[in-house]
């Protein structure tokens, strides 16, 4: 039976997998999402996966590698648990609409990390969308994005907002898309330490660059678009293997920084930080 997931406004259809869908991804599952998904994934269980014959295009230096594969691409996923042979390998059509996944591990969800994130990111790159390392919060219908790398305070921010009426769409990774001139923010299943995520979406009103240099007081300093775009890029997951899409991501982030107010936010680790942001938004 086909399964459908919708992440960041992208519909993924999965065929041929009987793996149980558990955890955060289950929140992004739905019936009848689309007669024709944006990305159709077909899974097959195999015992062996042959070595790639095409040129290595990108090595993440960790769990995945990208190769040329005739007129398509091939993503091999590795784990130390399964030796040198990839535990799954995906053949991806050039337009990203058809993905054949071979899985060596029984019960393994073919969409499982890192393939889900790689596919959605690659799909969004030429379509004015980008995933950002950030905590996303919907407060009173307004989307607020708190960006930062690991250790900058995304989880802390999520916990500060957690006890109020706001919806936290992710404490770690959020998708932003330009939809007919409106910048929308989407939750993703890819949560962080606080393990908070939802499929919520909202128009993006503010972006805050988390600044941990002053943790005792609340304050915001507006950033010029050039600096804002650079800060956004430093928190993005760009496709480094594709110069064209890399350029498109830079363009998207430049437009985003010019369209949505971006400020550097220092914050106290207490509820006054939430009140401060709400006050700043209302001003």
């Amino acid at each position, binding site marked *: 039976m086909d399964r459908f997931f919708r992440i960041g406004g992208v519909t993924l259809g999965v065929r041929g997998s009987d793996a149980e869908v558990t955890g955060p*991804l289950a929140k992004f599952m739905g019936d009848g999402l689309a007669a024709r998904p944006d990305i159709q994934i077909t899974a097959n269980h195999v015992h062996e996966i042959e070595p790639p014959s095409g040129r290595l295009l990108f090595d993440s230096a960790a769990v995945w590698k990208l190769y040329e594969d005739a007129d398509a691409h091939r993503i091999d996923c590795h784990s130390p648990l399964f030796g040198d042979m990839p535990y799954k390998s995906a053949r991806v059509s050039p337009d990203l609409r058809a993905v054949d996944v071979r899985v060596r591990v029984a019960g393994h*969800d073919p969409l499982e990390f890192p393939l889900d994130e790689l596919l959605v990111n690659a799909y969004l790159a030429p379509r004015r969308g980008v995933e950002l390392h950030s905590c996303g919060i919907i407060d009173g219908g307004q989307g607020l994005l708190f960006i930062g*790398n*690991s250790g900058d305070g995304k989880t802390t921010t999520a916990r500060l907002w957690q006890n109020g009426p706001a919806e936290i769409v992710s404490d770690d990774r959020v998708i932003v898309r330009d939809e007919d001139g409106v910048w929308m923010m989407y939750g993703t299943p*890819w949560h962080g330490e606080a*393990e908070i995520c939802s499929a919520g979406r909202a128009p993006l009103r503010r972006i805050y660059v988390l600044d941990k240099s002053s943790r005792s007081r609340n304050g915001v300093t507006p950033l010029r678009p050039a600096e804002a775009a650079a800060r956004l890029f430093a928190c993005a997951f760009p496709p480094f293997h594709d110069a064209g899409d890399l350029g498109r991501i830079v363009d998207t982030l430049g437009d985003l920084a010019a369209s949505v107010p971006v400020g550097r936010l220092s914050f106290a680790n207490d509820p006054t930080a939430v009140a401060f942001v709400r006050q700043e938004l209302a001003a």
Partner: protein
Amino acid sequence: MEQTREDKKKPYIKPEVTRFPLRPEEAVLGFCKSTSAAGPSGGTCRSTLCQTAGS
């Protein structure tokens, strides 16, 4: 009153170079972020192969 070309000029701002820290190990999606339930135990982590928590 109509503005002259001179009035419309923006003040000159000297270009400056600012360095931003990039973290390639995070940016390439090399590691799963969900550290709470590493391994095939399930929990909130949906990865059955998660031995690579990092960043």
